[in-house]
């Protein structure tokens, strides 16, 4: 059976308020990917559009983008899995190519969160949970992850300092990322100074510094079959493993509160499909919408034993020079988190790493990379393993 490769990657800068419309925002990530792949729009057989629809004023944006990107008359369609929409898009595109239905597919993720106010945005985020039984209590994304942080701290002795270390690492690399929304350094002093904005409580125990920012952005990943890849691409990055799983929306239906079971299961599936173990991963991007989310990812993906994520961050093993570099592009904590574009941006980072084109954040000669992208509060778990 033909293998499937990623032959082009692109993303817009992630910014607080994009000075243009959604089609123009999407064009930026798309153009970069098409130029990266050295193809023309006519080579693309289909497009998959990924976002969280509650931010859009445009009904059915896929059709609008197909027109603006010059992708008529090829088919286009829309997929959604909250913050992991574009990883789901890649999973779908993989199956379209693998089945032989299409030779080359563009996965386009986007979000223009600034179309609505910050509080409206929080209201919509709350409705990413169970609107019948949870939202009437006044729920918000940070509070859900805070509940996981509380349970993790209680069970394993993880501290607020450990969580701050994750943000400090993110900021170390965010400063190097021209496309990141937050590019300033973050220090432990900032978390320890009650007057500092970073230390302010959002939803206990999480503080402002534990949370990523909303952003506007777009990403594009172009997948192709083996034949097209050999014709177009000098440095192909192959899809080795894919995993996807779900967990109940309502927290009342869950048994695990110190980790995300959907991430564990997606990781196991992806490792099995790739025929590798966590030790084989040379570089990873994990879904750090909150600091605790990165800590849980270390454990759920097998980079650390349950409860030992604090040792990994304290020993700086997830820094660029460490044994398992994680989020050396600054992560969502620095880049910002334009929901539908996020997964594509994470995949782009790993593709650049595997090609040796990551510049200042280049990890030494990685061969296998992993992307962990979560939708909602561990509702949708997606893990993608890439290799050169």
């Amino acid at each position, binding site marked *: 059976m033909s293998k499937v490769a990623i032959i082009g990657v692109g993303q817009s800068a992630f910014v607080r308020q994009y000075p243009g419309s959604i089609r123009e925002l999407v064009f930026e990530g798309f153009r970069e990917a098409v130029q990266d792949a050295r193809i023309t729009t006519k080579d693309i057989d289909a497009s998959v559009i990924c976002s969280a629809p509650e931010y859009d004023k445009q009904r059915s944006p896929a059709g609008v983008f197909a027109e603006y990107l010059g992708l008529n008359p090829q088919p286009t369609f829309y997929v959604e899995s909250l913050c992991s929409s574009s990883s789901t898009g890649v999973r779908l595109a993989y199956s379209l190519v693998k089945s032989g239905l299409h030779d080359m597919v563009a996965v386009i993720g986007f979000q223009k969160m600034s179309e609505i106010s910050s*509080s*409206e945005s*929080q*209201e919509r*985020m*709350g*409705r990413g949970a*169970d*609107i*019948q*039984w*949870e*939202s*009437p*209590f*006044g*729920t*918000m994304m*940070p*509070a*859900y992850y*805070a*509940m*996981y942080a*509380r*349970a993790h701290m*209680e069970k394993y002795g993880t501290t607020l300092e450990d969580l701050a270390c994750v943000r400090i690492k993110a900021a170390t690399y965010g400063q190097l990322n021209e496309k990141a929304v937050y590019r300033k350094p973050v220090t432990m002093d900032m978390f320890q100074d009650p007057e500092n904005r970073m230390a*302010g*409580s*959002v*939803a*206990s*125990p*999480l503080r402002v510094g534990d949370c990523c920012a909303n952003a506007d952005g777009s990403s594009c990943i172009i997948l192709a079959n083996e034949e097209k890849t050999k014709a177009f691409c000098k440095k192909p990055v192959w899809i080795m493993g894919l995993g996807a799983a779900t967990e109940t929306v*309502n*927290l*009342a*239906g*869950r048994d695990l*509160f110190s980790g995300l079971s959907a991430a564990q299961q997606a990781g196991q599936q992806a490792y099995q499909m790739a025929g590798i173990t966590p030790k084989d991963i040379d570089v990873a991007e994990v879904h750090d919408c909150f600091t605790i989310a990165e800590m849980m990812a270390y454990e759920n993906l097998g980079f650390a034993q349950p409860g030992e994520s604090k040792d990994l961050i304290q020993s700086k093993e997830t820094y660029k020079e460490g044994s398992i570099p994680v989020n050396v592009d600054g992560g969502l904590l620095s880049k910002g988190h334009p929901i539908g574009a996020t997964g594509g941006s994470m995949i782009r980072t790993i593709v650049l790493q595997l090609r040796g084109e990551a510049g200042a954040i280049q990890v030494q000669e990685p061969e296998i990379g992993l992307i962990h992208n979560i939708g909602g509060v561990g509702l949708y778990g997606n893990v993608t393993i890439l290799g050169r």
Partner: protein
Amino acid sequence: MGSIKEVDDRFKKFGTVSFTSISKTNDFVDYLEKGKVMGTRCKDCGVVFFPPRAECHQCLASSMEWFEVSGKGKLVTFSKLQFAPVGFEEDLPYCIAVLDYGDYKVFGRIAGDLPEEEIKLGMEMVTAVNSLPNGQLNYVFKKA
């Protein structure tokens, strides 16, 4: 003149802001008005559900009976919010939490009069109906 069909939208009374007005579990709100927090049990296969539901995903039956959430549960986790979604600002600050009853868990709020310092994971709590200042109803967890 056609007859006006009455809409059973009792569910809109649940929570500070309800995002649902019509549900096959509308009776849940009637029970709240009587001071009872109820879940459902499948009459065919016996599985219990909280939150309550009208159909059973285990045996696909629609024959449910109500049971009361009673006795003590153990606090699994919680968070105190300093920011709220639109419509909940007046309630701040408040804690959301999960309580474990063994056969099922309950997601809700912790009673507003319990100081955060006194809230410990694993502590025993009870679930009680609560009237909100805007006339709406929800339920909260209180120290057992």
